[in-house]
């Protein structure tokens, strides 16, 4: 495709930044090949005849005088069947195939097609010859994995009549159909390319309302996210960001997960690669890997490719959203992405903003999160798709006032603030219930009020109120000691403790505790609040608080989260027992 003759020459190399001249009409964000080794890079600034290029590989040995040639195209990703269950680096090089061809290390210049060109896919048409079709229409389907049907769509911008289409087994570069368009007949292959920095179009945006169920009690019940929503998870090191992201990737009820490991640990990606083929999706019973696309640009891989990795990930996510799926993307960590931008910006000698970050940090972050949403997809069937985005943020020293957290908070709707102190007490997930929030609470209350229980919202509000009151009372206790509290207040502290320990605390590594359905979440919380109400009544009737607290049934309540999903009704019976036990402590004559 490279018809142009422009051949530039390097004038400067500074780490991942290369400056070249003589690149003629090469455009902004165009991909170029750099140096004698032909390393891939992307033009990120043009000043007259000086082209600044971020290079996706290590630049040792590259110097002035070496050649640079344009490719004529921006950074694109391959879209088509075969993405699922694969692991890519930040510029979509397939790490599994690189390993097969180049060995255990990602060596410089290693390259392989992102999607296997040889593999055949069985295509079943959904439209026939002579049909008029437009962008987004589904021409046919392919069973990409046992859980994801790959829908072959008319690409954006195309319109016309199907000239030919046939069932059969195709490699991704073979045409499955020919469309007669105004500009002539165009063959349509399974493989399409899309520039990563350009959002894929939708017909219409909708307000997201349906909860994205994560099975994590503190998230679903207190700070829910919705399908098509955005959330951030900031926290200092070791506070549990990655575990939250992994839990979401495992249990969120999205159709497809795109997990972007952006500038983080190699072992964490290995963990996903080992676990996901083993773990079963609670809905389909199939291995989680069959609905997962992985992007791994670990911290020691080139920073320019790290900058690209979130765009690579979100473009693949949009592609499946366009098919009408609910897709969720996790990016761990967006701070490392922002730092990659900062590093390039510094080398470009741009005017720095706060803490050296470029002045456009906030707008870049916003435009990334803006690619999330619930929408009507292109295509005449009016199908809906959604893309939820959850970004981890790693603030220096856990300081939430730093620029990346602040810029993120301006755009996302859910804030799951991880707390060093809670993590230190091994209270996981260490999500601070006083500072975290979700702006989707009302929408979720409505849906869960209908689908789970009409007291859903009331439960949540009461739990939050108890937790807030606990914080106030604790302040008081610090000053004057426990003895100054009334029996009611002491009971409230116990109730708060039960909410924290028996409901919010959730062990990601316990086979049962790792996931809790909404009905079970509702029942556990109702049980705890019920206990609180009954005890409150009993105290008012003259019962001793200490006796109530010594009841053996409390032990059972603390084990409620361990009750298997199939036996959740047991929780209703437990509630009855708890009620009877508490009321049994009322002085005689007061019993109801």
């Amino acid at each position, binding site marked *: 495709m490279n018809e142009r003759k422009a051949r530039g020459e390097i*004038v*400067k*190399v*500074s*780490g991942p930044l290369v*400056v070249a001249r003589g690149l003629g009409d090469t455009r902004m964000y165009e991909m170029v090949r750099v140096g004698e080794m032909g390393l891939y890079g992307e033009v990120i600034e043009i000043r007259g005849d000086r082209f600044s290029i971020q290079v996706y590989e*290590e*630049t*040792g*040995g*590259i*110097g*002035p*005088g*070496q050649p640079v040639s344009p490719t004529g195209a921006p950074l694109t990703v391959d879209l088509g069947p075969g993405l699922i269950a694969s*692991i890519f680096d930040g510029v979509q090089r397939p*790490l599994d195939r*690189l*390993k097969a061809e180049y*060995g*255990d*290390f990602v*060596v*410089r210049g290693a390259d392989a097609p992102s999607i296997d060109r040889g593999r055949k896919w069985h295509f079943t048409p959904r439209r026939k010859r002579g049909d008029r079709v437009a962008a987004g229409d589904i021409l046919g389907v392919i069973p990409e994995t046992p859980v994801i049907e790959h829908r072959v769509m008319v690409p954006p911008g195309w319109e016309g009549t199907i000239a030919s289409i046939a069932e059969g087994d195709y490699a991704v570069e073979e045409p499955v159909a020919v469309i007669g368009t105004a500009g002539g007949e165009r063959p349509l292959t399974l493989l399409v390319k899309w520039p990563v920095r350009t959002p894929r179009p939708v017909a219409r945006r909708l307000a997201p309302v349906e909860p994205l169920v994560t099975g994590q009690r503190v998230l679903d019940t207190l700070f829910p996210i919705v399908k098509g929503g955005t959330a951030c998870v900031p926290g*200092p*090191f*070791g506070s549990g960001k990655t575990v939250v992201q992994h839990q979401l990737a495992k249990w969120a009820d999205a159709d497809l997960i795109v997990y972007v*490991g952006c*500038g983080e*640990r*190699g*072992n964490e*990606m*290995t*963990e996903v*690669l*080992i676990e996901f083929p083993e773990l079963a999706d609670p809905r389909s019973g199939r291995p989680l890997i069959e609905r997962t696309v992985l992007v*791994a640009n*670990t*911290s*020691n*891989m080139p*920073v320019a490719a790290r900058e690209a990795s979130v765009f690579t990930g979100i473009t693949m996510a949009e592609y499946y959203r366009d098919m009408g799926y609910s897709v969720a993307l996790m990016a761990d960590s967006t701070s*490392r992405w922002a*730092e990659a931008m*900062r*590093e390039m910006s*510094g080398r470009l000698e741009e005017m*720095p903003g706060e*803490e*050296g970050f470029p002045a456009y940090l906030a707008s870049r972050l916003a435009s990334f999160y803006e690619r999330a949403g619930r929408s009507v997809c292109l295509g005449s069937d009016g199908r809906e798709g959604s893309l939820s985005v959850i970004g981890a943020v790693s603030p*220096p*020293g856990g*300081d939430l006032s730093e620029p990346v957290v602040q810029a993120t908070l301006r755009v996302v709707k859910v804030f799951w603030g991880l707390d060093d102190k809670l993590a*230190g*007490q*091994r209270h996981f997930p260490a999500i601070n219930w006083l500072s975290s929030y979700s702006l989707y609470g009302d929408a979720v209350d409505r849906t869960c009020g209908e689908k789970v229980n009409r007291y859903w919202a009331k439960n949540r509000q009461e739990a939050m109120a108890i937790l807030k009151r606990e914080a106030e009372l604790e302040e008081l206790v610090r000053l004057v*000691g*426990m003895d100054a509290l009334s029996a009611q207040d002491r009971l409230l502290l116990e109730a708060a403790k039960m909410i924290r320990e028996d409901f919010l605390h959730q062990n990601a*590594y316990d086979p049962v505790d790792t996931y809790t359905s909404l009905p079970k979440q509702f029942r556990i919380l109702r049980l705890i609040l019920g206990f609180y109400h009954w005890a409150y009544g009993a105290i008012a009737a003259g019962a001793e608080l200490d006796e109530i607290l010594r009841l053996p049934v409390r032990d059972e309540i603390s084990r409620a989260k361990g009750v298997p999903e199939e036996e959740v009704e047991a929780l209703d019976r437990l509630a009855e027992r708890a009620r009877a036990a508490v009321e049994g402590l009322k002085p005689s004559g007061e019993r109801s």
Partner: protein
Amino acid sequence: MRKEYLTVENIVGPLMLVEDVRGVAYAEIAEILMPDGSVRHGQVLEVHEDKALVQVFEGTSGLTPGAARVKFLGKGLQIGLSPDIVGRMFDGFGRTIDGGPPVIPERYADVNGVPINPEARDYPTEFIQTGISTIDVLNTLVRGQKLPIFSAAGLPHPRLAAQIARQARVLKTGEQFAVVFAAMGITFEESDFFMREFEKTGALERAVLFINLANDPPIERIAVPKLALTAAEYLAYELGMHILVILTDMTNYCEALREISAARKEVPSRRGYPGYLYTDLSMIYERAGRIKGRGGSITQMPILSMPEDDKTHPIPDLTGYITEGQILLSRPLFNEGIYPPVDVLPSLSRLKDRGTGEGKTREDHAGVMNQLYAAYARGRSAKEIAVVLGESALSETDRLYVQFSGRFEREFIAQGEGENREIAAALDLGWRLLGMLPKGELKRIKEAYIEKYYPGA
């Protein structure tokens, strides 16, 4: 014959600018011939048209524009490798300094290393017994992990690191084990301490040492961990050895990096450290690990001293963001005479769950770990309350926890410098202490294990 340049123009801090150069590439190594005949080394940090910015490892003192001759060698920084490096000592530039014969390399390797493909990594799961209970029981180390020690000025991290290097072993036998030791800017005394320790136990014969002392050129420190890890990778992935890499003190390394950044007038991020400190450190720490199908492993134990004992300082902070946990040392415990003064509560090994349990350590390990941790945390906070409101404000049970935490510090955390506690003995010790608490308090341990292990059960 490579061209020699006499065109050193500017000298700023550890950097010099060489003009009128041709064919120079980024990251290339340069040789600088001083007028007195001595030779220094540099590395190209940036090359712009005919100007090369070079960082001088040995420092620029005594260098004058025009007087030195600079030769670019056409390759990056390399180290010569052969099995004979084991038992040898090198300086910060990879030259032998133990008076022995030069090492005849089988091959040269670029010291920057190449990232391991995540697809090729094998997850670390194999328990390493260090004989130190606060690590083995509470913050278990596994093969291929990177677990730093966060220390501070005056705390006994050298003694702890030496003890670990001496005692560390895997419960399987017959495997080849070696220590790669990288000293960056530490004092002669400290380095000498390590030497004597290694010598005493015969570890020196199976160690590779890279030494840059406090009075050695600071910029040389930048190369030291890279040299050490390149040697470690060779031993681990080519010769199949299990390597423990000790890097001390990473704070000195980071300061050298800051010095260069300042000389380049880069926009700093926090506290004057360059914005790429995270990336730079991860290029070191991520070189720990295991690779599927290869015998060896690299376990890293970087040591750093926290400036002002502050965990949020960029060096410990960014380290914590990359490593798989951290062992924190505590000044108050040290002042109470407790060795090793491991601050148990904020310490964490993130890979502990993979390396513990039946078949690896013992079935009750996870329960004992969680219970000891919870009991100690409760005892400590009860003690704090007692300080404010008096002993009488505590309940009966809380008083028990206070007693527990005192004994826990004196008997479990504390141990002799020569004391190598087997994991089973350490767990038993844990049970003896838990025996101070009524059975009903042991909520984190499975009933069956309480029946089996509770003292007197």
